[in-house]
């Protein structure tokens, strides 16, 4: 529905999509392009077209001191940028149940061109106190900014690095969004990793490249050719990234140029095959996210490592363990609750979630009652982490006793002991079917 809405929006060269700072909404603004230029190139009626993109791009370079062609290009790329951010937002709020992510916060980063004719750029790049100079936003200015690594707004970066031989402008713009450092930084705070096609290929093993291509590859490339291309990519990528880092001082934002593509084996004319490899990789990696892993208590089923055939009748030891566990559970849960309680005034649902957990409700039930997603609950109450912490603290105490001394010498036994303690905390239930851990949490909160 939302994407349909996006498709209905006008896609021309005379408008720019930008964020309205008052309403906080995206608006379409008519660009102040010279009317003769518009008429000459039929800009008002021109719809998005790759050939036309390249024509305008060449014009912007040719008339390097004029702003009109560049302005049209800025308007042109604002749509794919807007579209890509929307896609990311819609897909990932759903996919990762992410509640932190905010569309406007993302748009501010990459949709920061409001179509102004002039720019303020620093006079001296390295000076501590910058004096700015007003410059016409032309190709000439763009190249000065590129040389000095001050490409701003984001559209300037997209256009300055664009090479029509390597990719079309639409794909290029969207890939630049994926490689944007500021956006990466923002999404990092939301617990999400934005990764460019170029890093993804370099960060994948040969095995993953081949398997993903076999399963999702859309081109005709044999395993052998793919292997050769990948191996040469790795070698050249390392060199190119190092060079880029030396030149710009940045790690993010690199994209392949013509020389890079020529250096591959076999040499590539454009980024098409690399982007298909990237696409196949993303499909392959994302397939586990299409279906879920575990629900409610299912995650615990895997953690339950208890398995034994032997009988052991030491009731005294059992009592010692139970006492140590009880004491450490109360101490650790106390600390955790105390730390989290500082956030309860701002967000009372946090307290409610802890109480509901203590009462024995499942993650899903808690999420529903607290009006949050299940991911929020699992992050707030990391049962496995809490039980591990209690188990470790208890084991630390127990291992000081002579009866437990031998566990210090054997990692496998130690693992068994700790996993057993964790299972006891999470699975052993009282008469009300409430686990020890949940019960402790309930008691601590009810105090």
């Amino acid at each position, binding site marked *: 529905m939302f994407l349909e809405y996006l498709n209905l929006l006008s896609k021309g060269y005379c408008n720019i999509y930008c964020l309205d700072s008052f309403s906080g909404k995206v608006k379409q603004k008519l660009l102040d392009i010279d009317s003769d230029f518009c008429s000459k190139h039929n800009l008002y009626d021109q719809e998005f077209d790759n050939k036309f993109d390249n024509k305008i791009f060449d014009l912007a370079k040719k008339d390097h001191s004029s702003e009109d062609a560049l302005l049209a290009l800025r308007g042109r790329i604002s749509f794919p940028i807007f579209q890509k951010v929307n896609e990311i937002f819609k897909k990932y709020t759903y996919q990762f149940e992410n509640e932190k992510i905010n569309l406007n916060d993302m748009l501010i980063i990459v949709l920061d061109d409001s179509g102004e004719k002039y720019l303020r750029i620093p006079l001296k790049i390295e000076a501590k106190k910058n004096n700015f100079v007003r410059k016409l936003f032309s190709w000439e200015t763009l190249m000065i900014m590129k040389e000095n690594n001050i490409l701003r707004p984001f559209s300037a970066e997209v256009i300055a690095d664009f090479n029509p031989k390597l990719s079309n402008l639409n794909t290029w713009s969207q890939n630049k969004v994926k490689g944007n450092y500021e956006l990466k930084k923002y999404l990092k705070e939301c617990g999400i990793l934005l990764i460019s096609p170029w890093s993804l290929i370099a960060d994948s093993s040969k095995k993953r490249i081949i398997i993903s291509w076999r*399963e999702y590859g859309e081109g005709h490339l044999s395993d052998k050719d793919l292997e050769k291309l990948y191996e040469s990519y790795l070698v050249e990528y390392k060199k190119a990234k190092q060079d880029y880092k030396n030149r710009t001082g940045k790690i993010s934002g690199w994209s392949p140029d013509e020389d890079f593509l020529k250096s591959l084996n076999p040499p590539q004319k454009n980024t098409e095959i690399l982007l298909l490899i990237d696409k196949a990789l993303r499909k392959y990696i994302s397939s586990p996210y299409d279906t*879920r892993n575990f629900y409610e208590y299912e995650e615990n089923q895997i953690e339950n490592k208890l*398995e*034994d055939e032997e009988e052991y009748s030491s009731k005294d030891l059992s009592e010692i363990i139970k006492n140590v566990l009880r004491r450490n559970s109360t101490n650790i849960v106390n600390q955790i609750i105390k730390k989290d309680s500082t956030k309860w005034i701002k967000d009372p649902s946090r307290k409610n979630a802890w109480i509901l957990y203590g009462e024995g409700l499942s993650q899903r039930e808690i999420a529903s009652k607290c009006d949050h997603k299940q991911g929020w609950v699992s992050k707030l109450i990391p049962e496995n982490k809490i039980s591990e912490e209690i188990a*470790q603290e208890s084991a630390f105490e127990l291992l000081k006793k002579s009866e437990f001394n031998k566990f210090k010498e054997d990692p496998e*036994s*130690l693992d068994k002991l700790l996993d057993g303690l964790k299972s006891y905390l999470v699975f052993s239930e009282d008469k009300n079917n409430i686990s020890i851990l949940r019960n402790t949490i309930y008691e601590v909160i009810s105090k």
Partner: protein
Amino acid sequence: MTKKNSNNDPLDLFPIPNDAIYINSKKNLDPRDKIISALKKYLKDKNLDLPLGPKLDLNNPQRSIILNKFDIQIVYTSLISDVIQIPLKNSKIKNKGPQLFLAAQLEEDLDVIYFKGVLKSTEFEKIVSKKELKKDSVGIEIENFKGGIERLIRYVRLLNPESIERTYFNTAISNFKIPSLKIKFNLSTPLIAGGLMAALIGPQIIRPRLIGGIAKLSPSTYEIQSFTRSSDSNSICLLTPTLAKNINNNFEAKIKIDKPVIYSLKPLNEINISKNGNIVWEKIASSKEKINGPINWPLNSINKKDSYRLSLRPEGSGMGSKLEIDFVFDKNIPLLNKDNIEKSLGKSKSDWISFIKRNLDKDNNTALTILLSERAPSSQRIKKSIKEIIKTDNCK
């Protein structure tokens, strides 16, 4: 070439693990320094006062770190990588190889570090013995590292430093030679651990009654109307999936896992699967080859948006004599991912058994899918359980 879901949009973003550590590092810090900063941050947050060294040479990339007297080699890769390269220099020098390998995944420009887990020297040896060794490093699948940073802390905090051997292998030989454990116990410590746990929790929890659970499973028999004179009493004895009749009086099976197993305890003449009305997989018995035993899902993962129909024709029956079953799914709950479950269960027999047992009551199809998986570890208990299934052949 098999192509999967080629119409689905691929992901542009990937989730950063919840346990990832975020640091604010100075510019130009190398990845190893960042990882050490993250480790220090973790220790500080957890109030763990464990000595970290070598004090005068902590940032030397050639050296292992020493945490509470344990020699640990930090190995790292990016957050999205599937393989990690492990330099072998120290492991080739006697008494210099690490006791533990700590895998970190980091995004260098974002200062995000995630500790994937730990490998002990013995575990490392096992994995490497199957690999073709490069000269100075070896690539290992990142999934081999388990337990996050908590596992590292477990070991270095609770074990004696001598309890884990150093890695060592002779140069020019492609497999590792690790001396056997110095410490031998008279009484097996794992048994003590198990015993203590039995005393603590009680045998009802620690003994997964897998076989008992399997024995309780009962197949259902479905009479198939025959259109041939000779065979008028053909039936299908279906162990899984479990069927119910819908309001239109058709059979349907509620499926909860993306690659369900199909198991008819009596031989079949034909089986096929239709997707959105088209047969996408089929198997027909021949005089030489019968269709017997479990059928692990032969297609790509089920997509809930598609409709699936399973068609089974019993042995001895003619064309048209078939049992047709529509797959139905819970709209609100995504399907379990078989591959992911198996990956999470890893090679631990106890984890597999525990998972199967706990799912037997809830959804026997999920439990049996995992039990009968080709990837199930070799375990006597699993073998016995599979045998038990045949015993449950009380088809009437």
